[in-house]
């Protein structure tokens, strides 16, 4: 089992989650993060004074999937989340040791 952790643009969340839905995606956790990468921040201003905001709002989605599903899900995310402009985000893959479903106590692949 592995965790796919994808940082994407805020406006791509709906599209990505709809697309994954079609795969029979098991589940998903969404967090709103502030990211910092190659993409430069925005200049904001307040009462006439400009300032640089270095952190850009991003969406992080985390999906725990069976080993065999990783590749196609990653491919799907890339297909939809890519615009080609700096700031499209990244995907990180990690090993998951175990998964337990609280409701039933099921473990491992069955719990996903």
């Amino acid at each position, binding site marked *: 089992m592995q965790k796919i952790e994808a940082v994407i643009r*805020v*406006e791509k969340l709906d599209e990505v989650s709809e697309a994954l839905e079609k795969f029979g995606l098991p589940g998903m956790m969404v967090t*709103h993060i502030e990211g910092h990468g190659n993409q430069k921040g*925005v*200049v*904001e*201003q*307040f009462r006439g004074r*400009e300032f640089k905001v270095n952190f850009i*709002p991003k969406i992080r989605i985390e999906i725990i999937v069976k080993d065999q599903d990783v590749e196609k899900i990653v491919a799907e995310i890339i297909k939809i989340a890519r615009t080609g402009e700096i700031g499209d985000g990244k995907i990180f893959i990690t090993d998951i040791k175990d998964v337990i479903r609280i409701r039933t106590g099921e473990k491992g692949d069955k719990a996903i």
Partner: protein
Amino acid sequence: MLKKVLLISSILLSVSGLAMAADPSGAETLAQNSMAPIDYVWVLVCGFLVFFMQAGFAMVEAGFCRAKNATNLMAKNALDFIVASLVFMAFGFAFMMGNDLGGFIGTSGWFLHGENYDVGRYLTFFWQLVFAGTAATIVSGAVAERLKFGAYFVYSFIVIAFIYPIFGHWVWGGGWLSQLPFGAGHVDFAGSGVVHTVGGFVALAGAIVLGPRFGKFGKDGKPKAIPGHSITLAALGTFILWFGWFGFNPGSTFSAHQLRIAVVAVNTNMAAAAGGAMAILIVYLKTKKWDVGMMLNGILAGLVAVTAPCAWIEAWAAVVIGLVAGALVVMSVYFWEGRGIDDPVGAVSVHGINGVWGLISVGLFADGTYGLCTTSEPLVRGLFYGGGFDQLIAQVIGAAVAVTWSFVLGFITFKLMDKIIGIRVTPQEEIKGLDIQEHGTPAYPNFYSNNN
């Protein structure tokens, strides 16, 4: 039929002493009319309340739109009153209330100068200004979340300088509509037509030319909900508007010596209550949820509708007018959405449609107990009170003219602007929100928002 003009003139005269040379200090006016102070106090205090409606509109619109555009909506709502003040002083007031030229337009009083430096004239200006500002601000809700700020400047200018005051002249400045040979002429006590129908149909034109917001309609064309960011602000705004309307309607007697103001105040309130009740009940029957947003729209719809008839009807009629308004606003919101027109706050349904309903209701419910800001003839009497179809005809004509004038001119304005300067922000800017793109200032930088 000059009666309305004469009546209004005589009221203004008695209040302001315009017959004399300009009286900037008010000494002569007071000498001529020792009861003037109470009328001045009444008109000013009511005018202050009408001004405060600007805050109400700002809160309702912001509450019904998303957090990422809240700064923009504050900017627009402050700006339109700023533009209204400056432009109405320069031209608008002269076009509206200046010496009549052929029943079509006023032609004196530029920059509030010369003869206009007079306490009565200033009083009239103040009153008309806060109304003009209301008409301008109505539009901002319908074009919210996608109109360029620069375009807002231009559009406000045009509404305040031409569209509003010229139509206003026809009804309130002694122009041709007030002299229609039916009933008491086209009458509109506090502006269901002059202010709300005009504002609402310019708003419709704007919404059509701009097109819907990104995401308002699915790929299948079905409308989607885009929830506003604060029901609390929307409700606060509605309470402020309700409060301000007690200036808007009762103050429109322009004189405290019309004790009818008590009836006007009660009617205003009853229609608001009935409108809210009807709107929430209808949506409840449909979705089994108590829809607060629509109730707030219903309250405003009742207020808009009763604005024209409020001085000429009894309280039960105000309830009926409000109930109809509450139903109309719900149907109208669904209607426009069903036609692909995106009006984020319901401005067209609240102000445009119910403005028309308000005008027409005069021709039905006016009960012949009161006249044109006076207790003497001609009294206004509608169909249900033995007035026959006369008044109704005058009302329908006026309403049709209001709709046509404001929609056509509004459409041309927005289309021309779109050609020349472009009126819509880019999709990218729209997604990020106007606050950061146009103003550099998110409204709530300390809070996490989902930027939807």
